[in-house]
């Protein structure tokens, strides 16, 4: 547990909660990122613009943070791109099929005590845990 960082995790999480609150209070929208990503290609006019603006904000936020704290995040190198592409496809397919991801179900939906979101979150957490177990400890594909 040498990498345990509860304070930055808790603070970052609170910022995410504030962000979701602002989007709901002002725009009446849930900050579900898979839905917003998908909606960019299924909308037009201002419906498309706010989604693009939110996604641009996600990028800008990361850029701002990396300018302020350039050494904070050490990104991994040489991860198998085939594994990334196949996994990314499943992330896209699965989040559309279940109408939400970590933000939409895991945060907004649970905050709303939606039974769908609570079950979805338990399911994708379990899926992630089992998959990492198989990749790291059964197949020993990655460290």
């Amino acid at each position: 547990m040498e990498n345990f960082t509860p304070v930055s995790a808790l603070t970052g999480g609170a910022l995410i909660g504030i962000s979701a609150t602002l989007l709901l209070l002002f725009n009446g929208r849930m900050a579900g990122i898979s839905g917003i990503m998908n909606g960019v290609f299924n909308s037009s006019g201002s419906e498309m613009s706010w989604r693009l603006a939110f996604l641009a904000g996600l990028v800008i936020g990361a850029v701002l943070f990396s300018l302020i704290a350039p050494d904070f995040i050490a990104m991994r190198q040489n991860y198998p791109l085939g594994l990334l592409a196949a996994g990314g496809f499943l992330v896209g397919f699965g989040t559309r099929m279940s109408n939400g991801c970590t933000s939409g179900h895991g945060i907004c939906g649970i905050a709303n005590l939606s039974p769908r979101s609570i079950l979805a979150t338990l399911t994708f957490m379990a899926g992630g845990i089992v998959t990492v177990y198989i990749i790291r400890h059964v197949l020993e594909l990655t460290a």
Partner: protein
Amino acid sequence: MKRILLALLSGILFGIGLSLSQMVNPDKVLGFLDITGNWDPSLMFVMIGALAVAFVSFRWVLKRPAPILDDGFHVSKRREIDKPLLLGAGLFGIGWGMTGYCPGPAVSGLGLGTLEALVMVASIYAGFFAQKWFAERK
């Protein structure tokens, strides 16, 4: 225009939150999911922090008749627990465990200039389109 600016501001805050909490670091995410290995429980605190705010604020916000810049709330009222929900969430979990990325960090990762984020965003969209095609075919 105000709605677009607000979405931009909300996105920026979200992106900073994902960065500070290290959700944008796929190694950190996989360390969290690796409960039988050298488990790093940090990311549980991301959820605790976000839910501590949203659990209280959503109740307060949804008492309003409408949001500040729109005529009504766009909130899902679906209740049914069905096969697509569980199967989809399971597939998402497998993809998350294979990569260490969920959709938000993949988009934010574009700002960190990694090839990984580019591959993730492209393949997530490929998954979106494939699911749409698959659902419409049936």
